[in-house]
């Protein structure tokens, strides 16, 4: 039944039923989950945790979009509105986007993709989840006790001297979440270096692994700077030590340098794993080996490196030297090139493929479309003179949502649908999956495209009330958001439904060639019955053979 050449492994194959002896059945009860060191179970713990934060942050976004239906600030007070966008930003960035693909899909599939039994440090892996939960608890504590109103960027001296909200506890939450990130990053780096199956050379690694390797490097190298920055901010706020506030002899621009030195690479922490997922999906659903494997893999590393030297493009109007601005602008243009390389190679991969349009593929194609728009509008904000006009307007909001939501969340949803049969042993309903993917795509564009127009017209971000001429586009955006909301709610419902009622998937419903598909669904506790031996590239797809198979079945 499997017509693709299966040159990757020598392991025993399963018969195609629900694997009864698996990581889910190996232990029962809450304790078996809370004390698990199985990377697969930890991935699921993360999935539930980030879902909670996603929902809270999404509610905050929904309230903002409702508020912005009218020019006057009439639904909530300005203070509440400012807290809403802060909550939305903080939770989405640190408690959803950054952990999403690495901790859920990465945890679940990295060891399986490289033929390992687990990550290098399973107990550390569990510890990092506990740290993440503690961090989330701190964030929720701040939220329940009145929230924070600094924006997710915590710019000084507002955050240190003027803000009247729970800045310290929120910063502490992010600080702790950072350590969870660092530990996960170290774990992945060591796992990828030391635990690869025999024969799995670096250039035989799936591109998802390359992407997560690059991501982990950034996590480990950039996150400490965030920790230092937040610690310095807290020291100034708590004890009045002059670091950033000019009234105390500090320099507020220094904070921005430190903050963006982390937060720009963090953009790549968020998008690189998504790119990794897309490489897996495009190849599988076009039955093609990826075009330009080495170029796609190495472009992840190039992005990781270049991503560290472009932070000043967030500061073109901050009063940073105009010559520094020029250097950062040029480097920002160059960091777009490796992203372009990926998009071109994915496109070329489709050539002479045998393409099907199941849900994961729809998300992957959606990703390419939206990420391309997000990336190209990045050129506008990298262009110095144009950024002067659009900086801190809705143009920037639209740009980074095309990357973060249109890109990263689409990739996360695509990956989740793709690996859902592996994770649960059951298929989600394909019709509803496709429908949700299309609703998400339409809703997304309706929500965020008008924001490009709003931004060029001059509507600043973080505005609770706005002049009436901006109303029409805001109404459009809010209407789109309600459609987007439906697109996100549907999978929540049918994923839960599929846990019990979904069709049994079998070990490899997509006839994919990755190692993770060469074992039962759900996988056994130790992933493989024997150590796989790898003899070929990860994408041994053959479109011609797939066509013949299709003809034979028709």
């Amino acid at each position, binding site marked *: 039944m499997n017509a693709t050449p299966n040159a990757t492994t020598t392991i025993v194959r399963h018969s195609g039923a629900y694997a009864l002896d698996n990581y889910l059945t190996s232990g029962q009860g809450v304790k078996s989950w809370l004390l698990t060191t199985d990377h697969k179970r930890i991935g699921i713990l993360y999935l539930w945790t980030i879902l909670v934060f996603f929902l809270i942050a999404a509610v905050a976004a929904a309230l903002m979009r409702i508020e912005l239906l009218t020019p006057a600030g009439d639904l909530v007070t300005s203070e509440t509105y*400012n807290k809403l966008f802060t909550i939305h930003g903080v939770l989405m960035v640190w408690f959803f986007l950054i952990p999403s693909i690495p901790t859920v899909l990465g945890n679940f599939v990295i060891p399986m993709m490289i033929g390992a039994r687990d990550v290098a440090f399973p107990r550390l892996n569990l510890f990092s989840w506990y740290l993440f939960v503690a961090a989330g608890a701190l964030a929720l504590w701040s939220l329940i006790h009145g929230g924070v109103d600094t924006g997710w960027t915590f710019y000084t001296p507002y955050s240190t001297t003027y803000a009247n909200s729970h800045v310290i506890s929120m910063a502490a939450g992010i600080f702790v979440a950072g350590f969870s990130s660092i530990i996960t990053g170290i774990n992945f780096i060591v796992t990828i270096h030391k635990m690869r199956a025999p024969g799995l050379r670096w250039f035989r690694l799936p591109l998802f692994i390359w992407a997560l390797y690059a991501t982990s490097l950034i996590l480990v190298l950039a996150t400490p700077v965030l920790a230092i920055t937040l610690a310095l901010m807290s020291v100034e706020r708590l004890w009045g030590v002059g670091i950033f506030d000019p009234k105390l002899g500090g320099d507020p621009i220094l904070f921005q340098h430190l903050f963006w030195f982390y937060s720009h690479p963090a953009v790549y922490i968020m998008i690189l794993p998504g790119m990794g997922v897309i490489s897996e999906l495009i190849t599988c659903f076009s039955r093609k080996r990826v075009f330009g494997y080495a170029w796609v893999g190495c472009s992840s590393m190039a992005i990781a490196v270049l991503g560290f030297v472009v932070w000043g493009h967030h500061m073109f109007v901050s009063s940073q030297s105009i010559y520094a601005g020029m250097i950062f602008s040029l480097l920002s243009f160059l960091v777009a090139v490796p992203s372009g390389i990926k998009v071109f190679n994915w496109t070329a991969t489709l050539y002479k493929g045998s393409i099907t349009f199941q849900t994961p593929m729809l998300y992957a194609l959606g990703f390419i479309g939206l990420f391309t728009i997000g990336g190209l509008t990045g050129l506008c904000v990298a262009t110095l*003179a144009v950024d002067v*006009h659009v*900086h801190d307007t809705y143009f920037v909001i639209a740009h980074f949502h095309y990357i973060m939501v249109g890109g990263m969340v689409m990739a996360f949803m695509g990956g989740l649908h793709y690996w859902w049969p592996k994770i649960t042993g059951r298929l989600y309903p394909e019709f509803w999956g496709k429908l949700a993917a299309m609703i998400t795509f339409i809703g997304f564009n309706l929500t965020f495209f008008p924001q490009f127009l709003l931004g060029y017209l001059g509507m600043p971000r973080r505005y609770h009330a706005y002049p009436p001429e901006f109303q029409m586009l805001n109404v459009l955006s809010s209407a789109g958001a309600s459609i987007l909301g439906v697109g996100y709610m549907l999978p929540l419902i049918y994923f839960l439904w599929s846990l019990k009622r979904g069709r049994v998937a079998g070990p490899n419903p997509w006839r994919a060639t990755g190692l993770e598909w060469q074992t039962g669904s759900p996988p056994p506790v130790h992933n493989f019955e024997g150590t796989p031996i790898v003899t070929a590239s990860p994408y041994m797809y053959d479109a011609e053979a797939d066509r013949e198979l299709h003809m034979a079945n028709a």
Partner: protein
Amino acid sequence: MDKFRLIPPQASTSAHQIDWLFIALVAIMLFFLISVFFPITWFAIKYRRGSNANRSNPSHGSNLIEISWTTLPVVLSVALFSWGAVAYYHIERPPPNALEVQIVGKQWMWKLQHAEGKREINELHVPLGQAVALTMTSQDVIHSFFVPAFRVKQDVVPGKYTSEWFKATQLGEYHIFCSQYCGTEHSGMIGRVVVMEPVAYQRWLTTGEAGESIVVSGRRLFLDRGCSGCHALNSKFHAPLLEGLFNKPVPLSNGETVKADQQFLRDSILLPGKQIAAGYDNIMPSYTGQLSEEEIMQLIAYLKSIADNRSPPPP
């Protein structure tokens, strides 16, 4: 105001410059979008599963293709960067002899004063066709002075002077937005620019409470607050004379040389011990907390006014 538009009013010289650059960017974005979307759509149809398309000899990579689709974006990037950088250089550096307006931002209002002395709150009247340079600082958090119709924006940073300039090309009223989040009433920190005929502007300057010019205020402060007690020829203290100082190099006691620009003068008034002019002692008291941001700007305007003539102007 309710007419639907895609771009804001083009009311300054930079507006045209930036819009053209933006249009070029949109063209390049469309080029890349089409060169990605068209093949994807085409391949998705032609190579859908079950189609009869020829799939023999698929290619898995080609360094020639990779190098070409790496090089083309690099070349376009450098071209766009250069265009953007040249325009940025232009909009970041005020021309000489621009009209001067001083702005102090605070939570949540703009306080403005024209060189001639006229003050405004949240409004800025400017003449048509004349370059206007804003010197800005904040007395609390960071703000940003954004006029979409002029395509100019600059953060207004406490402890620091930043500048922004424009030359209005169209009569009318335009939005001023604070675009850097500054706290609770951030979205209420808005105002308007009124572009007037130069004659009307001159008349406006002298109506109402015109007050004294910034330089005269600065000179008065210089005398009243005791600056002139030391910084004078006949002073019994050894303090530098300030006539002809502005924008000239100043040797410091630590061997460095700095330019006596606005930032240096501001720091010397508030933190006199930070940079000591060579040959002088650290005897000047700090004026932190004794002068408002507006007063410091007035003092600096006065020092600037005596940059060329070596004797102070008559009061």
